[in-house]
């Protein structure tokens, strides 16, 4: 039996279930498309502890749990941005733009007291993915 890291195993499982959560699989397969969890972690400079706490608050506020499926539901907007990017670096840039646009257009949420953009909250939620493996 292949010994996949637990996170990759989950991502493959999600893909096998027919979810549209395919970017991680693409990454696993060595393609250049950005991978959601990696992009989210990259957005936060690789320091995800705090982002995870906010992400948990976000999914909780939405009435969801921290399963991969729930996180996927909670993060559709950010996933779309990542999916549309050609590389990890482009994804991070595009996410930065999306965050500012959220603030400009009033799409913010208050989590643990912090006023964050919707995309930002979704990115925080995506950083939870490894913990769900």
């Amino acid at each position, binding site marked *: 039996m292949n010994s996949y890291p637990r996170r990759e195993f989950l991502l493959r499982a999600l893909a096998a279930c027919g979810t549209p959560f395919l970017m991680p699989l693409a990454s696993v397969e060595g393609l250049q498309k950005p991978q959601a969890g990696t992009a989210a972690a990259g*957005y936060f400079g690789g*320091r995800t502890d705090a982002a995870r706490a906010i992400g948990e608050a976000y999914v909780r506020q939405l009435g969801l749990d921290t399963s991969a499926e729930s996180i996927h539901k909670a993060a559709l907007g950010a996933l779309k941005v990542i999916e549309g990017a050609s590389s990890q670096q482009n994804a991070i840039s595009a996410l930065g733009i999306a965050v*500012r646009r959220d603030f*400009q257009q009033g799409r*913010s949420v208050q989590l643990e*007291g912090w*006023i*964050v953009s919707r995309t930002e909250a979704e990115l925080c939620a995506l950083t939870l993915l490894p913990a769900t493996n």
Partner: protein
Amino acid sequence: MIADARTLAEGATLEADVCIAGAGAAGMTIALDLRASGLSVLLLESGGAERDPEVQALSEGRMTGIDTWNVRAMRIRALGGTTGHWAGWCRPLTPQDFEKRDYIPLSGWPIKYSDLVPFYRRACETVQIGEFDWNSAARAKATGKALLPLGDAIDQRYYQFSPPTRFGSFYSDTLGQADDVRVLTFANVRDIRLDQRRGRVESFACRTLQGTTFNVQAGRYVLALGGIENARILLASRSQESDGVANGHGVVGRYFMEHPHYYNSVGVVHPSTADLSFYQRGPSDLKRADGTVVEMLGALGLAAETSRREKLLNFSATFSGPGAGRAASGQAQSDVLPASTAQALVTRGAGDFNATQLTVRSEQSPFRESRITLTEDLDALGMPRVALDWRIAPEDDVRMRRAMVILARELGAAGLARTWIPGDTSRFVWRQDPGGHHMGATRMGTDPAVSVVNSDSRTHQVENLYITGGSVFTTGGDSNPTLTIVALAHRLADTLKRGASTMNR
């Protein structure tokens, strides 16, 4: 001339064209303006040149609503009044503050901002600040400090700081040398006596703490006793009218307003490279009449259009805390704002950041149940003490939180900062504290059913009785009130001068 009422003969009657009760910022300003006007002026002050605990005890009262610190200590009974401990913050109300806003019941002054501007200009000189110029972009340019690159939703504004002018020490000599102004210290108004028709004041019945009684008869009378005492003397003057003077509609004492202050309540985390120097107190390019430099402090508020569109109250937010504006290497300076969160959201793992806090000064909407009443307790003069029941309409708190979210979004949209707004259980406290600004209890308006004085600051019901000070504010805006109080006093002085030929005794 400055005299001591304790030296008067028992039962004496003093006469003047204008009698002003209260020698604080408002009363002294009017007296100064009426010099050489052809009017004789008698200015009554409860205290003397210095604070006296026995005199100060006359202001004792109870607080039954939101804590307003200390009714006794908040207002000073001495020459110069509360300017004796004024911090000197100056900023005018905004044009919007004078307008009727449909979403704020009873908003809308009977005068416009433009009506008050000439008097604001005079007030700037009186309180020793720079010219009446509130253009933030011009200030930033002249001082070489940068405004934050925020969108149109945010109004960038600033305060000027008075030295502060202690009216008692600064203006007493000038008044003392005036031939037509008599200042009478240790003189307390105990009762306002009306004529038979109840349409004019006939006299002020006065008394010293030593028991000497005397009367003042004047052509016109001005109450300039402060935001609480103005209402108190009207309510307590029950010798002829059971509800007091100028209170036929039961409005006196109602609609008491403060400036709810949310001290250090909102957390802001920003990259340490952000330049907040405009928002730290420091020298401006503005000069006083004597050539000295005026200090200023930048602040953030909502633009009038934003406030109108969102149906919000006015506020001003100033940065505070040791980290405000300093490009120090970054650690969050509050353990309430976790450094890791700041690092993630603001610098995204790379770069230093600073944490600071905002103190928010808010407007409150006029609220009928927020009021001053009299108690059964009597002071040393036999005057009923007050009960101050400061309340805030429940929707005001919702509006302020909403306003903070909008400010947070604008800071985020500009890529400047992330903002943290506390819940009720956080160590940052979201709590309405007072600013020591007492307003609204004898409010100005056109409808006697919801106001006490008209646009001339004259009571609706008593034709020769005027009131000035914070108590006549129709709405309070978010600006510290002293500059507006002095502007209104200059305006009333002009009104009194204009009426000199027809309204004398």
